[in-house]
Protein backbone atom coordinates (compact mmCIF):
# COMPACT_ATOMS: atom_id res chain seq x y z
CA UNK A 1 0.00 0.00 0.00
CA UNK A 2 2.66 2.42 1.09
CA UNK A 3 4.90 1.53 -1.80
CA UNK A 4 2.08 2.17 -4.24
CA UNK A 5 1.38 5.56 -2.69
CA UNK A 6 5.06 6.50 -2.79
CA UNK A 7 5.23 5.44 -6.43
CA UNK A 8 2.07 7.43 -7.16
CA UNK A 9 3.60 10.50 -5.53
CA UNK A 10 6.69 10.21 -7.73
CA UNK A 11 4.60 9.70 -10.86
CA UNK A 12 2.52 12.76 -9.97
CA UNK A 13 5.70 14.75 -9.33
CA UNK A 14 7.12 13.80 -12.72
CA UNK A 15 3.81 14.58 -14.42
CA UNK A 16 3.53 17.97 -12.76
CA UNK A 17 7.13 18.74 -13.67
CA UNK A 18 6.49 17.80 -17.27
CA UNK A 19 3.33 19.90 -17.39
CA UNK A 20 5.06 22.85 -15.73
CA UNK A 21 7.83 22.78 -18.30
CA UNK A 22 5.68 22.34 -21.40
CA UNK A 23 2.05 23.41 -21.48
CA UNK A 24 1.98 25.32 -18.20
CA UNK A 25 5.24 27.16 -18.75
CA UNK A 26 5.29 30.64 -17.17
CA UNK A 27 7.38 33.27 -18.93
CA UNK A 28 10.04 34.19 -17.99
CA UNK A 29 11.27 30.69 -17.18
CA UNK A 30 12.64 31.61 -13.73
CA UNK A 31 9.08 32.05 -12.45
CA UNK A 32 8.58 28.30 -12.79
CA UNK A 33 10.14 28.02 -9.31
CA UNK A 34 6.61 28.74 -8.18
CA UNK A 35 5.56 25.15 -8.90
CA UNK A 36 7.92 23.92 -6.18
CA UNK A 37 7.63 26.96 -3.91
CA UNK A 38 3.86 27.20 -3.39
CA UNK A 39 3.19 23.51 -2.66
CA UNK A 40 6.09 23.26 -0.23
CA UNK A 41 4.90 26.37 1.63
CA UNK A 42 1.43 24.86 1.97
CA UNK A 43 2.91 21.55 3.16
CA UNK A 44 5.23 23.26 5.62
CA UNK A 45 2.23 24.99 7.21
CA UNK A 46 0.06 21.87 7.17
CA UNK A 47 2.80 19.77 8.80
CA UNK A 48 2.74 22.17 11.73
CA UNK A 49 -0.99 21.58 12.08
CA UNK A 50 -0.20 17.85 12.29
CA UNK A 51 2.45 18.61 14.94
CA UNK A 52 -0.19 20.52 16.91
CA UNK A 53 -2.75 17.72 16.56
CA UNK A 54 -0.16 15.11 17.60
CA UNK A 55 0.93 17.21 20.59
CA UNK A 56 -2.61 17.81 21.83
CA UNK A 57 -3.42 14.15 21.21
CA UNK A 58 -0.45 13.06 23.31
CA UNK A 59 -1.21 15.38 26.23
CA UNK A 60 -4.83 14.29 26.14
CA UNK A 61 -4.39 10.53 25.84
CA UNK A 62 -0.70 9.85 26.73
CA UNK A 63 -0.44 7.37 23.83
CA UNK A 64 3.12 7.34 22.43
CA UNK A 65 1.86 7.05 18.84
CA UNK A 66 0.60 10.65 18.93
CA UNK A 67 4.03 11.85 19.96
CA UNK A 68 5.70 9.88 17.18
CA UNK A 69 3.29 11.34 14.61
CA UNK A 70 4.16 14.84 15.84
CA UNK A 71 7.89 14.07 15.67
CA UNK A 72 7.62 12.57 12.19
CA UNK A 73 5.67 15.51 10.83
CA UNK A 74 8.13 17.93 12.42
CA UNK A 75 10.90 16.21 10.47
CA UNK A 76 8.94 16.32 7.23
CA UNK A 77 7.86 19.89 7.96
CA UNK A 78 11.48 20.90 8.47
CA UNK A 79 12.25 19.43 5.06
CA UNK A 80 9.48 21.38 3.34
CA UNK A 81 10.25 24.57 5.25
CA UNK A 82 13.83 24.29 4.01
CA UNK A 83 12.55 23.80 0.48
CA UNK A 84 10.19 26.75 0.86
CA UNK A 85 12.99 29.05 1.94
CA UNK A 86 15.52 27.78 -0.58
CA UNK A 87 13.21 28.01 -3.59
CA UNK A 88 12.01 31.38 -2.33
CA UNK A 89 15.58 32.64 -2.14
CA UNK A 90 16.41 31.37 -5.62
CA UNK A 91 13.30 33.04 -7.01
CA UNK A 92 14.01 36.26 -5.17
CA UNK A 93 17.56 36.36 -6.48
CA UNK A 94 16.37 35.80 -10.05
CA UNK A 95 13.47 38.24 -9.88
CA UNK A 96 14.58 41.07 -7.57
CA UNK A 97 18.33 40.49 -7.53
CA UNK A 98 18.55 39.98 -3.74
CA UNK A 99 18.81 36.74 -1.84
CA UNK A 100 16.94 37.88 1.21
CA UNK A 101 15.37 41.03 2.57
CA UNK A 102 13.61 41.63 5.89
CA UNK A 103 10.10 41.76 4.52
CA UNK A 104 7.32 40.38 6.74
CA UNK A 105 6.70 37.25 4.73
CA UNK A 106 10.34 36.34 4.35
CA UNK A 107 10.90 36.85 8.07
CA UNK A 108 7.91 34.79 9.07
CA UNK A 109 8.90 31.95 6.73
CA UNK A 110 12.34 31.99 8.31
CA UNK A 111 10.68 31.85 11.75
CA UNK A 112 8.70 28.81 10.62
CA UNK A 113 11.92 27.07 9.65
CA UNK A 114 13.54 27.99 12.97
CA UNK A 115 10.55 26.64 14.90
CA UNK A 116 10.92 23.25 13.23
CA UNK A 117 14.69 23.18 13.75
CA UNK A 118 14.38 24.08 17.45
CA UNK A 119 11.73 21.40 17.87
CA UNK A 120 14.13 18.82 16.45
CA UNK A 121 17.05 20.07 18.56
CA UNK A 122 14.91 20.00 21.71
CA UNK A 123 13.86 16.46 20.88
CA UNK A 124 17.42 15.35 20.30
CA UNK A 125 18.74 16.84 23.54
CA UNK A 126 16.13 15.37 25.88
CA UNK A 127 16.83 12.03 27.53
CA UNK A 128 15.28 9.14 25.71
CA UNK A 129 12.83 8.16 28.41
CA UNK A 130 9.76 8.21 26.27
CA UNK A 131 7.18 9.92 28.43
CA UNK A 132 9.30 12.84 29.47
CA UNK A 133 10.53 13.62 25.98
CA UNK A 134 7.07 13.22 24.51
CA UNK A 135 5.50 15.55 27.10
CA UNK A 136 8.10 18.28 26.73
CA UNK A 137 7.98 18.14 22.93
CA UNK A 138 4.20 18.27 23.01
CA UNK A 139 4.29 21.40 25.18
CA UNK A 140 6.78 23.01 22.81
CA UNK A 141 4.73 21.97 19.78
CA UNK A 142 1.64 23.67 21.14
CA UNK A 143 3.38 26.88 22.23
CA UNK A 144 5.30 27.07 18.94
CA UNK A 145 2.10 26.67 16.96
CA UNK A 146 0.88 29.97 18.43
CA UNK A 147 3.38 31.65 16.07
CA UNK A 148 2.11 29.87 12.97
CA UNK A 149 -1.10 31.88 12.36
CA UNK A 150 1.12 34.91 12.09
CA UNK A 151 3.12 33.29 9.28
CA UNK A 152 -0.10 32.54 7.48
CA UNK A 153 -1.60 35.99 8.01
CA UNK A 154 1.54 37.73 6.80
CA UNK A 155 1.55 35.55 3.69
CA UNK A 156 -2.00 36.45 2.75
CA UNK A 157 -2.98 39.90 3.92
CA UNK A 158 0.02 42.13 4.43
CA UNK A 159 1.51 44.60 1.97
CA UNK A 160 4.76 43.05 0.88
CA UNK A 161 7.31 42.67 -1.86
CA UNK A 162 5.97 39.12 -2.10
CA UNK A 163 2.68 38.74 -3.98
CA UNK A 164 -0.24 37.24 -2.06
CA UNK A 165 -1.44 35.18 -5.00
CA UNK A 166 -0.54 34.52 -8.57
CA UNK A 167 -2.81 35.20 -11.50
CA UNK A 168 -2.41 32.67 -14.26
CA UNK A 169 -2.70 33.23 -17.97
CA UNK A 170 -3.91 29.78 -18.93
CA UNK A 171 -5.77 26.96 -17.27
CA UNK A 172 -2.79 24.68 -18.03
CA UNK A 173 -0.76 26.65 -15.50
CA UNK A 174 -3.46 26.25 -12.86
CA UNK A 175 -3.60 22.55 -13.66
CA UNK A 176 0.18 22.22 -13.30
CA UNK A 177 0.07 23.96 -9.91
CA UNK A 178 -2.80 21.78 -8.69
CA UNK A 179 -0.94 18.68 -9.88
CA UNK A 180 2.29 19.62 -8.12
CA UNK A 181 0.30 20.52 -5.00
CA UNK A 182 -1.28 17.06 -5.02
CA UNK A 183 2.06 15.37 -5.67
CA UNK A 184 3.91 17.14 -2.86
CA UNK A 185 1.03 16.77 -0.39
CA UNK A 186 0.90 13.05 -1.10
CA UNK A 187 4.67 12.81 -0.75
CA UNK A 188 4.51 14.61 2.61
CA UNK A 189 1.75 12.32 3.87
CA UNK A 190 3.62 9.16 2.85
CA UNK A 191 6.85 10.47 4.37
CA UNK A 192 5.10 11.19 7.68
CA UNK A 193 3.63 7.71 7.65
CA UNK A 194 7.02 6.12 6.91
CA UNK A 195 8.84 8.13 9.58
CA UNK A 196 6.18 7.40 12.20
CA UNK A 197 6.58 3.67 11.60
CA UNK A 198 10.34 3.93 11.69
CA UNK A 199 10.26 5.88 14.97
CA UNK A 200 7.84 3.36 16.40
CA UNK A 201 10.18 0.50 15.52
CA UNK A 202 13.19 2.38 16.92
CA UNK A 203 11.34 2.91 20.20
CA UNK A 204 10.39 -0.76 20.33
CA UNK A 205 13.99 -1.80 19.68
CA UNK A 206 15.29 0.46 22.42
CA UNK A 207 12.77 -0.92 24.87
CA UNK A 208 13.80 -4.49 24.06
CA UNK A 209 17.50 -3.78 24.34
CA UNK A 210 16.90 -2.30 27.79
CA UNK A 211 15.23 -5.47 29.03
Amino acid at each position, binding site marked *: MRRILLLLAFVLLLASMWMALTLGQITPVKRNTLYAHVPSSVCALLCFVVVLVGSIGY*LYSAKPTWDLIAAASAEVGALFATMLNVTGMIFSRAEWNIWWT*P*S*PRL*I*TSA*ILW*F*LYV*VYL*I*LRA*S*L*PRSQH*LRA*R*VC*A*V*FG*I*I*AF*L*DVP*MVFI*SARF*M*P*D*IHRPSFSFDSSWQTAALVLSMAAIALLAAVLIWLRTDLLKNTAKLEKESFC
Partner: protein
Amino acid sequence: MKYFWLSFKAIFIKDIVAELRAKQVLPTMIVLGMLIVWILRIASEASSVSTTVIGPVALWIALLFAGLLAQERSFAIEQQQDCIYALLLAPVDAGTIYLAKLFVNVVMLCIFEIIIIPVVFLSFPLSVQNRWLSLIAVLMLGNIGISSVGTLFSAVVQLTRTRGSLLSIIVLVILAPMMIPATFALLTLFGVIGAQVTGSGTLAFVGSFNAAVGYMTAFDAIFVVACWLLFGFAIKE
Protein backbone atom coordinates in the same frame (compact mmCIF):
# COMPACT_ATOMS: atom_id res chain seq x y z
CA MET B 1 -8.96 32.42 45.64
CA LYS B 2 -7.58 33.20 49.06
CA TYR B 3 -5.57 30.01 48.91
CA PHE B 4 -4.20 31.02 45.52
CA TRP B 5 -2.91 34.34 46.91
CA LEU B 6 -1.44 32.63 49.94
CA SER B 7 0.58 30.12 47.91
CA PHE B 8 1.45 32.71 45.26
CA LYS B 9 2.84 35.00 47.94
CA ALA B 10 4.75 32.20 49.63
CA ILE B 11 6.58 31.12 46.46
CA PHE B 12 7.20 34.70 45.40
CA ILE B 13 8.69 35.75 48.74
CA LYS B 14 10.74 32.55 48.94
CA ASP B 15 12.37 33.24 45.58
CA ILE B 16 12.98 36.94 46.15
CA VAL B 17 14.48 36.34 49.60
CA ALA B 18 16.68 33.54 48.27
CA GLU B 19 17.94 35.85 45.53
CA LEU B 20 18.54 38.79 47.88
CA ARG B 21 20.49 36.60 50.30
CA ALA B 22 22.53 34.65 47.77
CA LYS B 23 22.89 37.46 45.19
CA GLN B 24 23.37 34.77 42.62
CA VAL B 25 22.06 36.15 39.40
CA LEU B 26 21.17 39.84 39.68
CA PRO B 27 24.79 41.05 39.67
CA THR B 28 25.54 38.78 36.70
CA MET B 29 22.54 40.16 34.83
CA ILE B 30 23.58 43.75 35.45
CA VAL B 31 27.19 43.24 34.44
CA LEU B 32 26.16 41.33 31.32
CA GLY B 33 23.73 44.11 30.39
CA MET B 34 26.38 46.80 30.86
CA LEU B 35 28.88 44.84 28.79
CA ILE B 36 26.39 44.41 25.95
CA VAL B 37 25.55 48.12 25.98
CA TRP B 38 29.19 49.19 26.00
CA ILE B 39 30.31 46.76 23.30
CA LEU B 40 27.52 47.98 21.05
CA ARG B 41 28.47 51.55 21.86
CA ILE B 42 31.96 50.90 20.51
CA ALA B 43 30.50 49.41 17.32
CA SER B 44 28.17 52.37 16.84
CA GLU B 45 31.02 54.84 16.61
CA ALA B 46 31.10 54.31 12.84
CA SER B 47 28.56 57.06 12.19
CA SER B 48 26.28 59.38 14.15
CA VAL B 49 23.16 57.82 12.59
CA SER B 50 24.00 54.37 13.89
CA THR B 51 24.41 55.74 17.43
CA THR B 52 20.72 56.55 17.70
CA VAL B 53 19.66 53.32 16.02
CA ILE B 54 21.90 51.04 18.06
CA GLY B 55 20.93 52.66 21.39
CA PRO B 56 17.41 51.22 21.61
CA VAL B 57 18.63 47.97 20.06
CA ALA B 58 21.33 47.67 22.75
CA LEU B 59 18.69 48.14 25.44
CA TRP B 60 16.54 45.46 23.89
CA ILE B 61 19.35 42.92 23.46
CA ALA B 62 20.57 43.51 27.02
CA LEU B 63 17.02 42.93 28.25
CA LEU B 64 16.66 39.69 26.31
CA PHE B 65 19.89 38.12 27.49
CA ALA B 66 19.56 39.26 31.09
CA GLY B 67 16.04 37.86 31.05
CA LEU B 68 17.39 34.52 29.89
CA LEU B 69 19.81 34.45 32.83
CA ALA B 70 17.00 35.17 35.29
CA GLN B 71 14.75 32.50 33.83
CA GLU B 72 17.45 29.87 33.70
CA ARG B 73 18.05 30.43 37.39
CA SER B 74 14.40 30.33 38.41
CA PHE B 75 14.25 26.54 38.16
CA ALA B 76 17.96 25.78 38.39
CA ILE B 77 17.85 26.72 42.10
CA GLU B 78 15.02 24.26 42.60
CA GLN B 79 17.23 21.45 41.29
CA GLN B 80 19.69 21.88 44.16
CA GLN B 81 18.93 19.29 46.81
CA ASP B 82 15.84 18.32 44.80
CA CYS B 83 13.75 21.24 46.01
CA ILE B 84 11.59 20.81 42.94
CA TYR B 85 10.05 17.64 44.42
CA ALA B 86 9.07 19.48 47.58
CA LEU B 87 7.52 22.20 45.48
CA LEU B 88 5.60 19.66 43.42
CA LEU B 89 4.48 17.72 46.49
CA ALA B 90 3.12 20.85 48.14
CA PRO B 91 -0.64 21.13 47.78
CA VAL B 92 -0.34 23.98 45.29
CA ASP B 93 -1.77 24.18 41.80
CA ALA B 94 0.91 23.96 39.09
CA GLY B 95 -0.49 27.10 37.48
CA THR B 96 0.12 29.01 40.72
CA ILE B 97 3.77 27.92 40.77
CA TYR B 98 4.10 29.15 37.20
CA LEU B 99 2.48 32.53 37.89
CA ALA B 100 4.60 33.10 41.00
CA LYS B 101 7.82 32.22 39.15
CA LEU B 102 6.75 34.44 36.25
CA PHE B 103 6.18 37.33 38.64
CA VAL B 104 9.60 36.79 40.22
CA ASN B 105 11.24 36.94 36.79
CA VAL B 106 9.32 40.08 35.83
CA VAL B 107 10.38 41.75 39.07
CA MET B 108 14.01 40.75 38.49
CA LEU B 109 13.88 42.28 35.01
CA CYS B 110 12.35 45.47 36.44
CA ILE B 111 15.20 45.80 38.94
CA PHE B 112 17.63 45.17 36.09
CA GLU B 113 16.00 47.88 33.97
CA ILE B 114 16.18 50.47 36.74
CA ILE B 115 19.95 50.10 36.54
CA ILE B 116 20.47 49.49 32.84
CA ILE B 117 18.33 52.33 31.46
CA PRO B 118 20.51 55.07 32.97
CA VAL B 119 23.54 53.19 31.59
CA VAL B 120 21.99 53.25 28.10
CA PHE B 121 21.20 56.95 28.42
CA LEU B 122 24.75 57.68 29.57
CA SER B 123 26.30 55.70 26.74
CA PHE B 124 24.12 56.82 23.84
CA PRO B 125 22.83 60.30 22.96
CA LEU B 126 19.16 59.38 23.25
CA SER B 127 16.02 61.17 24.33
CA VAL B 128 12.46 59.95 24.79
CA GLN B 129 10.82 63.40 24.58
CA ASN B 130 8.79 63.14 27.82
CA ARG B 131 7.30 59.80 26.84
CA TRP B 132 8.57 58.02 29.93
CA LEU B 133 5.22 56.42 30.67
CA SER B 134 5.06 54.89 27.19
CA LEU B 135 8.63 53.64 27.59
CA ILE B 136 7.79 52.00 30.92
CA ALA B 137 4.66 50.43 29.40
CA VAL B 138 6.59 49.01 26.43
CA LEU B 139 9.34 47.65 28.66
CA MET B 140 6.80 46.07 31.02
CA LEU B 141 5.07 44.37 28.09
CA GLY B 142 8.49 43.18 26.93
CA ASN B 143 9.32 41.87 30.41
CA ILE B 144 6.13 39.86 30.61
CA GLY B 145 6.57 38.46 27.10
CA ILE B 146 10.18 37.43 27.61
CA SER B 147 9.48 35.89 31.01
CA SER B 148 6.31 34.03 30.01
CA VAL B 149 7.93 31.56 27.61
CA GLY B 150 11.23 31.47 29.49
CA THR B 151 9.69 30.52 32.82
CA LEU B 152 7.80 27.59 31.31
CA PHE B 153 10.78 26.19 29.43
CA SER B 154 13.21 26.86 32.27
CA ALA B 155 11.48 24.08 34.17
CA VAL B 156 11.78 21.82 31.15
CA VAL B 157 15.39 22.38 30.12
CA GLN B 158 16.69 21.37 33.55
CA LEU B 159 16.17 17.81 32.36
CA THR B 160 18.32 18.21 29.25
CA ARG B 161 22.06 17.99 28.83
CA THR B 162 22.56 21.49 27.41
CA ARG B 163 20.27 23.53 29.74
CA GLY B 164 20.87 27.25 29.34
CA SER B 165 21.91 27.25 25.71
CA LEU B 166 18.83 25.26 24.79
CA LEU B 167 16.64 27.67 26.75
CA SER B 168 18.01 30.60 24.79
CA ILE B 169 17.15 29.19 21.37
CA ILE B 170 13.70 28.07 22.52
CA VAL B 171 12.83 31.46 23.98
CA LEU B 172 14.28 33.46 21.10
CA VAL B 173 12.55 31.45 18.40
CA ILE B 174 9.14 31.58 20.06
CA LEU B 175 9.47 35.28 20.82
CA ALA B 176 10.73 36.11 17.31
CA PRO B 177 7.35 37.39 16.07
CA MET B 178 7.00 39.56 19.16
CA MET B 179 10.41 41.11 18.51
CA ILE B 180 9.03 42.90 15.43
CA PRO B 181 6.46 45.14 17.20
CA ALA B 182 8.75 45.47 20.23
CA THR B 183 11.63 46.80 18.13
CA PHE B 184 9.22 49.10 16.30
CA ALA B 185 7.87 50.50 19.58
CA LEU B 186 11.34 51.17 21.00
CA LEU B 187 12.60 52.78 17.77
CA THR B 188 9.52 55.06 17.67
CA LEU B 189 9.88 56.04 21.32
CA PHE B 190 13.48 57.12 20.80
CA GLY B 191 12.52 59.06 17.69
CA VAL B 192 14.58 56.95 15.27
CA ILE B 193 11.55 56.34 13.03
CA GLY B 194 8.30 58.28 12.71
CA ALA B 195 5.06 57.31 14.44
CA GLN B 196 3.70 55.93 11.18
CA VAL B 197 5.61 53.77 8.72
CA THR B 198 4.20 52.90 5.32
CA GLY B 199 5.55 50.75 2.52
CA SER B 200 6.31 47.06 2.28
CA GLY B 201 9.05 46.43 4.88
CA THR B 202 8.84 44.70 8.23
CA LEU B 203 8.38 47.96 10.10
CA ALA B 204 5.46 48.90 7.85
CA PHE B 205 4.02 45.53 8.80
CA VAL B 206 3.52 46.92 12.30
CA GLY B 207 2.38 50.33 11.05
CA SER B 208 2.02 52.60 14.07
CA PHE B 209 3.05 52.83 17.72
CA ASN B 210 -0.42 52.00 18.98
CA ALA B 211 -0.57 48.93 16.76
CA ALA B 212 2.83 47.83 18.08
CA VAL B 213 1.63 48.09 21.69
CA GLY B 214 -1.53 46.24 20.69
CA TYR B 215 0.44 43.39 19.12
CA MET B 216 2.69 43.14 22.18
CA THR B 217 -0.30 43.04 24.54
CA ALA B 218 -1.90 40.32 22.41
CA PHE B 219 1.27 38.23 22.38
CA ASP B 220 1.70 38.62 26.14
CA ALA B 221 -1.88 37.59 26.83
CA ILE B 222 -1.69 34.55 24.51
CA PHE B 223 1.67 33.34 25.79
CA VAL B 224 0.92 33.82 29.48
CA VAL B 225 -2.39 31.99 29.25
CA ALA B 226 -0.99 29.16 27.09
CA CYS B 227 2.08 28.69 29.30
CA TRP B 228 -0.04 28.83 32.45
CA LEU B 229 -2.29 26.09 31.10
CA LEU B 230 0.57 23.89 29.86
CA PHE B 231 2.87 24.27 32.85
CA GLY B 232 1.24 21.36 34.66
CA PHE B 233 2.10 19.05 31.77
CA ALA B 234 5.65 20.33 31.54
CA ILE B 235 6.66 19.52 35.13
CA LYS B 236 4.49 16.47 35.86
CA GLU B 237 6.73 13.67 37.08
